């Protein structure tokens, strides 16, 4: 690893810029930390879920008689027992427990609580569900056919977003060179190592739920709505939790836990098996994406046109918002005079798709970046040079919407940081040294990804601070921690703003009883939004100290407490774009353009076995612009983790179904990278501040997964001349392409 720290104005005592381990790291390595699914309460029962075995059907009857009479069973719940039987405000959000129709394998139908987990499982399996099968929509294209079976009364289109900044057809016909790509990317499973679950406890009409969540406010609303109780009667403790990556944004588990514990009159523990997560958990949206890019003779982009179809499965969780991000990033980090995007999210009987790190960007970036790589080859221009002729500079206008981007954008610098690495510079020599049957290649790719929910969405984070008489500071802030050590970063920021020892500061992020609503640990927003709210609340305290004439916290704390001024709150609202460009200002939130973007450029060097199609990745350079790195070691960890997930998406991960029936149902046949599959990764932090961010920081944990796939594809093309149009690039697919290449054009 090579980590270059950004130029820093930090002083000897400052905490920002130091690499500091996670808050519970010692408890973790000694095995003492109690995760939400480790929690045990006196008198606790165990739950289990009855799930659909068929992808589509009408429920004719649910017979719970045998299950309910089994010894040790305390309660059985079906849809009719749920006061408001939807996971969101509308039918499109899907039922808590299906009672009329099932639309995917694994959909929840009934819940059981019993004295032990084995009894609960047997009872759940003893529930007889009578289903009349309906025709299955097994593919996004099939869903759009005029005679396709309809999953919902309104048809199979769950959302559509289109935008054009001018006459694209004309601009493309005027272009000197047009490159066209038609690609597809798979459903990817998050495989957070802790399966979803936790414990719920009712006391005095209020429920406390210990369950992983990366959106505690949303989960409280889901629970309150489904159970018909007040929001203030729901407390969610969302950690410690074992990973998220988007999977814990829409997880119904908190609703199941609250329902079961209320009906059983006892605390209930419920935990999904790995097979349940694989089949019923959310996935990255699989996309079919087509792109055409026109270039002038000078290599400048003249126009771009993209269409995308995303398979969201049977219900809407994040689909239309995912597509919104795809639309914005359909032009990547490039200046594009005329651009068009047309995307649809469609319902199928496949796995429900939701949020996954990158949120619609890896899919469109695979089309766009591989098209740029192909264009570089066709135009005879170096792929770095071609990109540098077209990249957005800080303050430029966005390629599709025309809004100005932050002056803190460093795309050219990030690309240059990757391209000056030895692994890119020496690629020709490295390629020559290949030994048969292995052939060698090197690829490069580039991406940006917005920070926060985007303009017009009222995106905000909040922080609360109480100072005690001895000068100790407690801060409650969100977004919460699902592995990023975000609480440690909040403390680093607070220590520097307040100028106090971090040991005098406690930070709590994972309890809705105390943490003010701060939105999701998502959209690369935690550091930027939460860190800004923490800095703001600390400044409130400094102002109060100044009011009472105290020069520091130790001297002024007692005074603030006695005057009743020891408690502070602050809200940070993410800045909207300075002007909406070509977007109708009334519809800003429909497109949600970003002002601030994180950036990553990556170099992949790899070897291809010509006889077998096997790919061995030899190394990845990951340059990343995160503004100021608050906790550089944590940033490197996010970069390496993102690249590893990107390699999984590029080379091995694909959640497969046939006619709506899952094929890859466990970690035996859905493989994720092991230590053997991840090569050395050189992370390069690009220096510079984001002017609107806390201490100059911005988000980066999503953008690092985006360039990996297209950089792998570019390296494969460099090695063997095959331009892959489908991820993952498995040995079978690559070998098929190599054989076709040998046979020549048909």
């Amino acid at each position: 690893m090579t980590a270059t720290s950004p130029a820093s104005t930090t002083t000897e005592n400052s905490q920002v810029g130091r690499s500091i381990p996670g808050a519970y790291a010692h408890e973790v390595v000694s095995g003492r930390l109690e995760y939400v699914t480790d929690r045990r309460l006196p008198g606790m029962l165990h739950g289990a879920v009855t799930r659909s075995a068929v992808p589509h059907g009408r429920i004719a009857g649910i017979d719970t008689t045998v299950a309910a009479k089994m010894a040790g069973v305390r309660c059985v719940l079906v849809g009719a027992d749920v006061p408001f039987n939807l996971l969101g405000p509308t039918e499109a959000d899907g039922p808590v427990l299906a009672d009329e129709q099932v639309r995917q394998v694994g959909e929840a139908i009934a819940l059981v609580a019993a004295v032990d987990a084995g009894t609960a499982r047997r009872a759940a399996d003893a529930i007889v569900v009578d289903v009349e099968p309906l025709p299955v929509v097994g593919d996004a294209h099939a869903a759009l056919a005029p005679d396709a079976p309809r999953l919902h009364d309104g048809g199979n289109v769950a959302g559509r977003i289109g935008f054009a900044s001018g006459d694209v057809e004309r601009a493309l016909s005027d272009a000197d060179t047009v490159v066209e790509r038609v690609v597809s990317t798979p459903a990817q499973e998050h495989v957070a190592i802790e399966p979803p679950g936790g414990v719920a406890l009712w006391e005095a009409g209020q429920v406390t739920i210990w369950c992983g969540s990366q959106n505690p406010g949303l989960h409280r609303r889901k629970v309150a709505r489904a159970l018909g109780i007040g929001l203030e009667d729901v407390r969610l403790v969302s950690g410690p939790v074992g990973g998220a990556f988007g999977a814990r944004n829409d997880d119904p588990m908190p609703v199941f836990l609250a329902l079961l514990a209320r009906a059983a009159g006892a605390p209930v523990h419920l935990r999904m098996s790995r097979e349940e997560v694989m089949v019923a958990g959310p996935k990255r949206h699989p996309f079919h994406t087509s792109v055409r890019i026109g270039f002038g003779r000078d290599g400048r982009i003249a126009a771009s046109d993209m269409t995308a179809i995303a398979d969201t499965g049977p219900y809407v969780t994040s689909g239309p918002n995912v597509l919104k991000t795809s639309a914005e990033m359909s032009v990547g980090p490039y200046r594009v005079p005329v651009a068009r995007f047309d995307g649809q999210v469609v319902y199928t009987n496949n796995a429900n798709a939701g949020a996954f790190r990158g949120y619609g960007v890896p899919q469109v970036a695979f089309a766009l970046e591989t098209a740029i790589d192909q264009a570089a080859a066709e135009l005879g221009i170096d792929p770095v040079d071609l990109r540098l002729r077209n990249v957005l500079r800080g303050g430029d206008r966005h390629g599709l919407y025309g809004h100005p981007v932050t002056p803190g954008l460093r795309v050219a610098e990030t690309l240059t940081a990757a391209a000056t690495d030895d692994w890119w510079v020496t690629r020709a020599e490295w390629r020559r040294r290949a030994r048969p049957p292995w052939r060698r290649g090197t690829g490069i790719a580039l991406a940006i990804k917005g920070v926060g929910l985007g303009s017009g969405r009222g995106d905000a984070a909040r922080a609360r601070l109480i100072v005690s008489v001895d000068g100790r500071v407690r801060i409650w802030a969100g977004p919460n921690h699902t592995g990023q050590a975000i609480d440690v970063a909040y403390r680093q920021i607070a220590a520097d703003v307040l100028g106090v020892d971090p040991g005098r500061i406690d930070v709590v992020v994972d309890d809705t009883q105390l943490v003010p609503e701060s939105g999701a640990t998502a959209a690369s927003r935690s550091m930027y939004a939460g860190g800004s709210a923490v800095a703001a609340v600390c400044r409130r305290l400094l102002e109060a100290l100044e009011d009472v004439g105290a020069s520091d916290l130790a001297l002024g704390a007692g005074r603030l407490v006695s005057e009743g001024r020891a408690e502070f709150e602050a809200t940070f609202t993410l800045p909207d774009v300075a002007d909406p460009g070509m977007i109708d200002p009334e519809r800003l939130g429909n497109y949600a353009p970003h002002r601030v973007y994180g950036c990553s450029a990556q170099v992949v060097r790899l070897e291809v076995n010509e006889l077998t199609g096997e790919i061995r990745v030899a190394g990845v350079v990951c340059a990343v612009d995160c503004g100021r790195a608050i906790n550089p070691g944590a940033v490197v960890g996010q970069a390496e983790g993102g690249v590893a997930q990107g390699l999984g998406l590029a080379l091995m991960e694909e959640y497969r179904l046939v006619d709506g029936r899952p094929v890859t149902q466990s970690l035996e046949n859905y493989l994720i990278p092991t230590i053997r599959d991840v090569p050395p990764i050189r992370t390069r932090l690009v220096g510079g501040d984001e002017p609107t961010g806390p201490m100059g920081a911005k988000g980066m944990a999503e953008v690092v997964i985006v360039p990996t796939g297209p950089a792998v594809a570019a390296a494969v093309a460099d090695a063997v001349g095959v331009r892959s149009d489908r991820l993952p690039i498995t040995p079978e697919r690559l070998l098929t392409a190599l054989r076709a290449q040998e046979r020549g054009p048909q």
Partner: protein
Amino acid sequence: MKVNGVPVDPPDAAARLIDYLRDDLGLIGAKEGCGMGECGSCTVLMNGSPVCSCLVLVGQVGDGEVTTVEGVASGATGRAVQEAFVRRQAVQCGFCVAGMVVSASALVAEHPAPTDEQMRAGLEGNLCRCTGYGAIARAVREATR
């Protein structure tokens, strides 16, 4: 059998070792991530060798010795591995880490200066979805210095 050096008398030879450790003994360090020996989060040492405790029945241990992550720190090697994991920021969500620390301790005990290939062979049975394994490899290197 002995668990972390203490003689114990398990009531049910047919129970899975992971359930006995977690539910009867309260040793929650071993985590269940898949229940079929694929993820390695439940790794413990049986007579010094790493095994997935979800695949072992209590009766199979016989009068052998089981060492969990909670017991790993009683040796200098285990302590060094744990400290290196903290220092090198190899803990993100941490759910795989207990199993990873057990496997890494066994690796370092067998190969005090492991080659890259020995490290890969020793840790390839432990899945981590957060770190990309870089910080973990750096921690193991540091622990062997």
